């Protein structure tokens, strides 16, 4: 991920049917949003394997949001019920690893909630700003610097 060196990076993993449409609406409605998030669309929030969240953190993301349809609204009936159990379990595991639970959130955003999408991004981005860079990203940057020095 290439971006401004000191700006926090946020990965948004969203479902196709609600949150992606909600994000689209936020864009079309021209709501002000931070620009430091990258949205990845999947067919359902249940497709978002914990592996993907761990990989995002391991690659240096400072925050990860998983977003899907509200309970009862899942396009595949029960995908989001499964996902919310996984996310809770994953939160426990991230705590054991030492990543602050504030870097990670699960949100329900429907296709009509463009405003909610924009607000969520603004608040989450501000929260990550206060937390600073993720410890894994700091480690990665230090390693890269060492490699660059060794190369010179």
């Amino acid at each position: 991920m290439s971006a401004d060196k000191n700006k926090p990076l946020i990965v948004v993993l969203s479902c196709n049917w609600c949150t992606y449409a909600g994000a689209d609406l936020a864009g079309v409605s021209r709501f002000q949003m931070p620009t430091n998030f990258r949205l990845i669309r999947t067919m359902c929030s249940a497709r978002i394997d914990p592996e993907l969240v761990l990989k995002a953190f391991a690659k240096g993301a400072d925050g990860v949001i998983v977003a899907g349809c509200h309970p009862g609204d899942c396009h595949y009936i029960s995908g989001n019920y499964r996902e919310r159990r996984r996310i809770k379990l994953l939160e426990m595991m991230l705590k054991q690893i030492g990543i602050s639970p504030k870097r990670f959130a699960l949100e329900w955003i429907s296709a009509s909630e463009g405003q909610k999408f924009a607000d969520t991004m603004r608040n989450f981005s501000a929260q990550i700003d206060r937390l600073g860079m993720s410890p894994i990203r700091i480690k990665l940057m230090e390693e890269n610097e060492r490699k660059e020095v060794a190369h010179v």
Partner: protein
Amino acid sequence: MSEKIRLAIATAATCDGCDMAIIDIDGMLLDLFDIADIVFSQTYVDTKYEDLEKMPDGYITASLVHGSMRDEENVHLAKLLRKKSKLMVAFGACSAFGGIPSLANSVKGGMGKIWQTVYGKDTASTVNPEGTTPQHKWKTPLGRTLTLPEAEQKIVPMDKIIDVDYYLPGCPPAVSTIKTFVGAVHSHVTKGTPLPPKGAIIASEKTLCEECPRVKPEKYNIKKINRPYEIELDPEKCFLEQGVICLGVATRAGCGAQCTKVGNMPCRGCYGPTGLVLDQGASMLSALGSILDMTDHELDMTDDELEKIVAQVPDPLGTFYRYTFGNAIINEAVEDAEE
């Protein structure tokens, strides 16, 4: 017959269970020694590191290394063997994935904290009034310098340190797995059949459930998670149906489902992740998350209720990554800033 192949069976940070497993192939040992000589091993023959250093590069046909890369001596041995051998084999879960010792990576504060727990005042059972700790270097009163290898900061699988040709997973590898490998080497030497491709894991490509004979229900819904000692385990029913966490769904097959079939005990995942996933722990977490206590009032479930459901898993990291934390996507604990 032409010259025998040369074998090294080396130990890193290990419990030596893998050595026992090699002896367990009993009759096949005769086949093995028909074609092979052990030229280096700390357990079976009297060889020293000096002997190994004197060997020309590529002298050893295959080196089997078991145990994790806990200290610099283990790392040195792995690098030295790589230089001296044509084939490197990560033998057992420790060298293939980091093994149980790699759970030490999950301690926040790393080796410093572990040192403190073992030798410091943190634990009530430690009596160490003078605060004596092992030193890397020590000068004796007579002027000799003694050294001990220093511990690595984190345990990684052997293939992160050197190039590895084959993997034999398991804790220890099942006899059938070792026999498959020895058989492949034997027929390569005697009949010239090709060896498995480089990087092959000598096990199945499927999950353990494929091998496990237990009856699986159409749909799962775990109402309560039980520890194996809390209930009477049904020998026919799937463990997950009985509410016992079994890692079979996220574990590679190849062991013959010994634990679930013969031992009446759930799988703990020593054969590591299957070929299609990156991370065994995440894979198990995902599987368990989707069958954990689906209620009929999902629509208005509160956050507290949800928390109660998942809190039944007391130690997700230790349970899901029991043998593979060293190999995980995030394989060490970090310290995050508090807001």
